[in-house]
């Protein structure tokens, strides 16, 4: 697993797609402290201030019929990691959001390049871990783990747990 760490980047998904096109290996991870142009579905802005966990992972090629499970799988894994580490009760808003107390805490955007088969897949995850201040326009719809539990969390540990679970679950699918 190779982790490419950036301070501020436009978008981890954009960078990961660029790398995937150039042939970077599956499980290459693009990690950023901040994103200046983070985005979700239909290029909706994903607010990405310092403190959050923003990363994209180049996934191994899936069968085309398995593509639709990728995002849901990641949502379950993230909810599980949050629940087990922080004793919180996350809710999955299928297929690509995780909520805490009715507010968004995580968004997942999977982007695939397909022909007759899958050329490559990139999964971007934006998790509000240590975000301390939510933009005023998002205050009623977004929160962070730190805001919920009142203490800082270990981003690196969370990243490794999510990737570890993803690897395990994707192996199960491909087997």
């Amino acid at each position: 697993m190779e982790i490419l760490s950036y301070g501020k980047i436009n978008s981890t998904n954009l960078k990961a797609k660029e790398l995937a096109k150039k042939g970077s290996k599956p499980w290459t991870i693009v990690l950023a402290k901040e994103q200046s142009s983070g985005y979700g579905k239909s290029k909706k802005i994903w607010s990405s201030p310092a403190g959050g966990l923003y990363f994209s992972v180049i996934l191994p090629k899936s069968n085309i019929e398995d593509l639709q499970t990728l995002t849901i799988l990641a949502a379950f894994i993230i909810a599980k990691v949050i629940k087990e580490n922080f004793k919180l009760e996350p809710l999955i808003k299928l297929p690509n959001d995780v909520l805490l107390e009715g507010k968004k805490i995580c968004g997942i955007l999977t982007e695939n390049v397909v022909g007759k088969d899958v050329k490559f897949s990139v999964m971007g995850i934006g998790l509000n871990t240590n975000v301390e201040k939510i933009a005023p326009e998002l205050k009623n719809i977004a929160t962070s783990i730190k805001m919920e539990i009142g203490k800082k969390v270990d981003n690196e540990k969370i990243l490794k747990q999510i990737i570890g679970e993803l690897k395990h679950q994707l192996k199960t699918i491909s087997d």
Partner: protein
Amino acid sequence: MKTKIKISKKSYDIDISEDKDGLIKVKIDDEEFIFSENEAGELIQCDREKIEAGKERIVNFCPVLIEKEIKSPIAGVISEIFVKEGDRINIGQKLLTIIAMKMENELVSENCGRIKKIRIKKDQFINAGDILIILE
């Protein structure tokens, strides 16, 4: 970039360069091979004589029109269409985006030719196997 490689007892001069149009030329001794990179980052070999013979290089990249219909590999909603009727397309070219389960799926061409008909519209729901584009 110039280098030499030795296979068995024979030595070959290799010269790799990129032209202003992004074509990659690989010269092995006196024989030249030309490649173009598609959207998926794959290098596709091009026909040098056909490229030189015509100005419309993209069409000439295509060795044979294998299938006339481009079908959707998945079900979903068309969110963007990047090509129009009459366009010449190449292997690996981005054609459209299909949103399925909130995932963005960029459909790239596995073929090349001229687009005769686009059978779908933006925001239209499509099933896997539906014909999206017809080539000629």
